[in-house]
């Protein structure tokens, strides 16, 4: 049985309590996308300012649960200063970590603790436990899917 501590790692609660890069940016020059978790009503805005080919500023707006908020906060820290392509790479690694590749016969996800492809994510590794709570995966990926949308607007 997966316990609460698998989900709510200390670093997650820390980002929830003290979210990084919270706020808005003026559009334009910044670009923005909005994402919804249609299941629970959470919503998020991701603002990006790309200058000289790198993400010079990023801000997160909206409301959500501890998982969606902390995941977005970590995301903002992880992509700040990267090129759009570099950000896409982080995105890919993160989504890989979040994807459930197989289910056990009784509908329980197979433990993904020793799953490959999720290295080099730093703090984000703390979100690995979320895959044991399938309903919360959508919370964890909300900010990232929204980042994906806003990256599409960079045209690169």
């Amino acid at each position, binding site marked *: *049985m997966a*316990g*609460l501590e698998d*989900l*709510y790692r200390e670093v997650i*609660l820390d980002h929830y*309590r003290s979210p990084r890069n919270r706020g808005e940016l003026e559009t334009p020059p910044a670009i923005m996308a909005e994402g919804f978790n249609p*299941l*629970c*009503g*959470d*919503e998020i805005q991701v603002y990006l300012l790309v200058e000289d080919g790198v993400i010079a500023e990023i801000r997160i707006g909206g*409301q*959500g*649960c*501890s*998982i969606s908020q902390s995941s977005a906060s970590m995301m903002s820290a992880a992509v700040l200063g990267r090129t759009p392509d570099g950000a896409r790479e982080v995105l890919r690694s993160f989504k890989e970590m979040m994807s459930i590749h197989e289910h056990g016969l009784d509908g329980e996800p197979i433990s993904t603790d020793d799953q490959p492809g999720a290295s080099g994510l730093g703090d984000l590794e703390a979100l690995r436990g979320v895959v044991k*709570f399938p309903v*919360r995966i959508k*919370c964890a990926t909300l900010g990232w899917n929204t980042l994906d949308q806003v990256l599409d607007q960079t045209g690169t």
Partner: protein
Amino acid sequence: MSTATLNVTTVKADFPLLGREVNGHPIVYLDSGATSQKPRQVLDALDRYYEEINANIHRGAYLIAEKATTAVEDSRAALAGFVGASAAEEIVFTKNATESINLVAHSWGRTNLSEGDVILLTTLEHHANIVPWQQLAAERGVVIRWIPLDDDGRLDLTDLDQLLDGVRLVAVSAASNVLGTLPPVRRIADAAHAVGALCLVDASQWVPHYPTNVADWDCDFMVFTGHKMCGPTGIGLLWGRRHLLDAMPPFMGGGSMIQNVTFEGFTPADVPTRFEAGTQPIAEIVGLRAAVDYLNAIGMEAIRQHELDLTAYAMRTLTERFGDDLAIHGPHDLENRGGTLSLAYRGIHPHDLSQVLDQHGICVRAGHHCAKPLMKVLGVNATARASLYLYNDESDVDALADGLAAAGDFFAF
């Protein structure tokens, strides 16, 4: 109908799932607003149907097909009786309340409404009673207007007369799935009729909990769903006044709903068959009848009283224990509300709250409850909702209170 009080220990024992454990704790099921659990009696009826008389209805001259047909029509009659319909033919089976409303929006709506006609909804409707009308609005230029709420989460009917100007249909919930609010349906139906409008009642959260009588409401259409009233999934209902149904074209086309089909076109069947295209959810219709028999044996009055007492206990317990740390959305006077308790607790996000409660075996729902416009008015994205039903007792409420306290400790920062 029994007038005895409900023996909740006996009732609980009828529900196999309620005897189970979750995450090492006896399950405390407080999400009947989403779907109810099913008594053994309903599961047995499903099994008996499949093991003894399973056959396609209205189609075979052989004995089990005849028995299946009779079982379906007996169910229709039982449901007509359960909601006070004047004839079994006024009962149309659908797959859920959502299909029932879509049926009315497509069949009655697209036949009778055109650009500029107004549909009046309330701010506390479920998406099922919003989106079909928004689809119609986008397609036909129909206008949607909203009855607002007062600060207690009751409908604010002050401006009802102005709101009714140009209205052709008022669609209102008999009970809110978020706030527990019980709008004054009869008053709204009367006001609708006074301006020549029809009144549709979404009774999805009413029928499971209260005696229902469409004649008392004097409404024109009424919908509800089987899975929230101890019945199986996959079955819903539309009741409509006979003369309205008679004048409505079919919604979906296919087998059974026809009188004749030629290469040139088709002639629809009479009601209710006209609206029941294809093979019906036969086992589910039989199961729903078993649910009605089950509820009737306990008595809807006894169920109402039990829930009233338990809601009072819950509101008292939670308020006494958590004071200002906890807010219960919606009306606080028990006359105006049912046992649906949307909670806000110490700023903990409902999703996180429900996650911690789950670790204690407590099932509550977190989210927008398919009522996003209402959430907007409440100024929240989500609530944590505990909803009570006939099988809940004070120990369930106590477990909820303990779970909330534990969540408070966990997220105390």
